[in-house]
């Protein structure tokens, strides 16, 4: 029932920005659906195969900003073969043909070709923002096209992509008339850049707020850039190697002190640790510090740096900080909300420098902690219970013990009780990753307590199907479930196939599910795509239903089987 003219409703809807809310609004009634769809500007698609570009365009003609995710999460860890899918080209092609005035494109884990980038750059006059996270398939030539053709480009943000660096002069391709840059992040590029072009670009970009450089940008260029852009809010330093007695270093000190707005600091891809004192003046204002790519920075120098960062809210660090260093964090960073500790030596034979002690210290000292990613050597139930008590506000809790089935080293027990304490205490937990020795018991706890859980990652855990069943039955809000190397079989998979329609996707690899079981799911649920990835040659000849499936990926979709799957992917 509609008492207001459409324009008013539209105006009201303008205030509703979250995707979830918008989706809900559109379900109220036909007229709300209509008004909502015409006024919608931002769309998020968590699985690019769940819908087609044509349908997207048809429903949201006013689309300006599109976010797409492609490959399943475990593709990050090489569990998904190359060329599995996730190509962005069809999307760009379809959008280009339409009348959509695309302004922003954000992609994650997708395959992006130079061709797509070129088409993108030429098809949308007002294109402003390109964000690529963990993508692959393009070279610096594609970037050159974006630079050259997008006249109003504001944001070019490349995060952890595999880019084939042709060392071309893509930076020089930004025309002289381009003065609109707000954010430029090319830290992931491995090749040389034209430093002169970079300096000129920065000098004509008065709105530049975020600049993240790659390793090839030396210190003296950094100094020049900082002099040109003292208004920076977010800085990523490339190379930070220099002689502390040099003129360049003195100049740098002066330049840094002028940058009073910097709140976020990252990079240090190459670092001379004895020169960190130049950074101290800006540390006091930092809210985000990312040193996770700077293994050269550790020990006392690192701790000294952290001691200056009293306002830190997010800290990404390598485990060479050690438990002791985490103690310093606990004492200094009282505003800390997010902590990520990455392994500096992923395959180290017992040399990872953080244990449960560091985590306990941080949990005690940083009461606002709500997001954690922690790679460690070991963990104890006692520590987890303490952490759960200290920090009941966790939204994301991802723990990775480097030895995948390691028990509590003190009691030799599985870590069921520890994780159980976490899910029981943290009522708002949305994302959880488990590791260590775990039995079905932990899943019982998760099913019982993790009511808000949306994403769960399991590896090398559980004893039987019961584990998976506890989760499927208990976690009502579950959206993504990814499992590897667990003894879950058909019984668990088939117990409640309807559940999968309420989820975005399910991944199971190296489990006990069989081909027959997967076929069964596909049969019962036509709204799901059930994909089997089999790389071994045996499966071609052995279509026995009892054959165990190596990798299963199923997801809900409105558009049926995809047409771009490679040979080794069977869609049942």
């Amino acid at each position, binding site marked *: 029932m509609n008492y207001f003219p459409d324009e008013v409703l539209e105006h009201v809807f303008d205030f509703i920005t979250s995707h979830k809310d918008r989706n809900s609004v559109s379900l109220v009634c036909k007229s709300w659906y209509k008004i909502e769809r015409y006024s919608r500007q931002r769309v998020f698609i968590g699985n690019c195969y769940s819908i087609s570009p044509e349908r997207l365009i048809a429903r949201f003609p006013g689309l300006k900003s599109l976010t797409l995710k492609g490959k399943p999460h*475990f593709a*990050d*860890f*090489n*569990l998904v*073969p*190359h*060329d599995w899918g996730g190509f962005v080209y069809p999307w760009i092609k379809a959008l280009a043909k339409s009348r959509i005035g695309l302004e922003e494109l954000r992609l994650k884990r997708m395959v992006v070709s130079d061709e797509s980038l070129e088409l993108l750059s030429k098809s949308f006059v007002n294109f402003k923002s390109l964000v690529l996270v*963990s993508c*692959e398939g393009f070279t610096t030539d594609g970037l050159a096209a974006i630079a050259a053709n997008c006249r109003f480009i504001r944001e070019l943000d490349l995060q*952890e*992509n*595999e880019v084939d660096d042709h060392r071309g002069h893509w930076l020089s391709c930004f025309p002289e008339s381009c003065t609109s840059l707000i954010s430029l992040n090319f830290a992931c590029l*491995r090749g040389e850049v034209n430093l002169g072009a970079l300096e000129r670009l920065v000098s004509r970009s008065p709105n530049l707020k975020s600049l993240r450089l790659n390793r090839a940008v030396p210190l003296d260029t950094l100094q020049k850039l900082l002099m040109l852009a003292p208004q920076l809010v977010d800085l990523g330093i490339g190379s930070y*190697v220099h*002689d502390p*007695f040099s003129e360049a270093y003195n100049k740098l000190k002066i330049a840094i002190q002028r940058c009073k707005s910097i709140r976020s600091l990252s990079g240090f*891809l*190459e670092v*001379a640790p*004895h020169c960190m004192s130049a950074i101290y003046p800006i540390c006091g204002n930092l809210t985000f510090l990312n040193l*996770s*790519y*700077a*293994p*050269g920075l*550790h*020990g*006392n*120098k690192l701790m000294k740096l952290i001691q200056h960062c009293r306002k830190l809210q997010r800290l990404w660090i390598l485990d*060479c900080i050690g438990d002791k260093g985490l103690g310093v964090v606990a004492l200094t960073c009282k505003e800390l909300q997010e902590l990520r500790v*990455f*392994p*500096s*030596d*992923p*395959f*180290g*034979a*017992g*040399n990872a*420098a953080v244990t449960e002690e560091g985590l306990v210290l941080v949990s005690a000292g940083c009461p606002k902690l709500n997001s954690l990613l922690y*790679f460690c050597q070991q963990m104890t139930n006692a520590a987890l219970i303490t952490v759960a008590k200290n920090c009941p506000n966790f939204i994301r809790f991802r723990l990775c013990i*480097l*030895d*995948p*089935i390691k*028990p509590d080293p003190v009691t*030799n027990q*599985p870590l069921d009780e520890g994780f159980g304490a976490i899910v029981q205490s943290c009522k708002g937990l949305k994302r959880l990753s488990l590791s260590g020795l775990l039995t079905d018991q932990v899943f019982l706890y998760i099913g019982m307590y993790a009511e808000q859980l949306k994403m769960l990652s399991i*590896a090398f855990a559980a*004893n*039987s199907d019961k584990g998976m069943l506890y989760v499927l039955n208990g976690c009502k809000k579950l959206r993504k479930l990814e499992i590897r*190397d667990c*003894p879950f079989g058909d019984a668990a998979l088939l117990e409640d196939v309807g559940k999968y329609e309420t989820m975005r996707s399910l991944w199971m690899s*190296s489990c*006990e599910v069989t081909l027959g079981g997967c076929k069964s799911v596909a049969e019962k649920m036509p709204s799901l795509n059930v994909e089997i990835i089999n*790389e*071994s040659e045996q499966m071609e000849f052995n279509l026995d239903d009892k054959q165990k499936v*190596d990798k299963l990926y199923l997801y809900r979709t409105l558009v049926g089987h995809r047409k771009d799957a490679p040979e080794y992917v069977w869609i049942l």
Partner: protein
Amino acid sequence: MSPPLLGVEEGGQNNVTLLGSSGSMDSVCQNNAELKERNYMGLSDCSSIDSSVVTPGSDESNVSLNLKATELRLGLPGSQSPERNPELCLLSSAQLDEKPLFPLHPSSDGHCFPSQKTVVSGNKRGFSDAMDGFSEGNFLSNSKVDVMLTPRPSSNLGLKSGSMLENLGVQPAKAKEVTNQKVVKDSPHAANETRPNHNASANNNSGAPASKAQVVGWPPIRSFRKNSLATSSKNTDEVDGKAGPDALFVKVSMDGAPYLRKVDLKNYSKYQDLSSALEKMFSCFTIGQCASHGTLGRELLSESKLKDLLHGSEYVLTYEDKDGDWMLVGDVPWEMFTDTCKRLRIMKSSDAIGLAPRAVEKCRNRN
């Protein structure tokens, strides 16, 4: 009975038993063509230096592989031993220049520099290369770390269902196939980059099977991050001189020595201290030199004779600075030296001619 010699080069007159404690060792005489050089496993593979830097599809026989599977390794535990899992290890010998997967501790260095004929630790050395000059301490610390390694209690396995075991046990085999295909297909762009290791060979301590096996996709770190860390750690090591907390370790090489050493420049406050330390460290090699010249190797050389060797016409101490240039040690103030020195090299003075001819003269004239 001649005391165990620290050097090996003998004129074929003595049958030298090198530290008989190491087990059955044939006496070896480099120059004696009759005796075949054997390593201490009794395998006659003289070029074990080369074989230690082995490509996948190792050229060693299956027999030796099996033996290797059971041997006690003297090297750093968990150090990369490509021939052990030829299928899992996809690194070529060129790439073995990278930091090994399981360094002893962050500051240790296991680089293999083929040009220096340094052995990747963890592999057997040919007899002639197993110079006893290296400190026993190395081995001791190795075995300590052995103990410190994450224990893999067999009770764990009992808790898990049989299928788990299977999974883990099968994993390497699966990983084999999968990774073989994958690395080929996976990001072709990365093909030229240093390709570290999520797919590479396992830690080789027998008795620690799957726990240290390279499980595909574990730990769950983005490939981009893994690759970056591998590259940057390699750079840091080579370029910066590994700096621990307030330590400044630089590599020291000596022409003719089979392996390098590392010194912490922070331990010294002047050139004299560094020089003495280096003399002591490398004395074993110089004794060897003496012996080969026919002097009586049986006496321990006096310190003054050592100094003669180093300060005399034999060697010159040089360093590589931040710009990559090789400089003579001693020209700049000590602090400046420690800040710019990346590595040291004890060069034969005959090679140093190009460096600074007058400097060599200076050396000669010092004593």
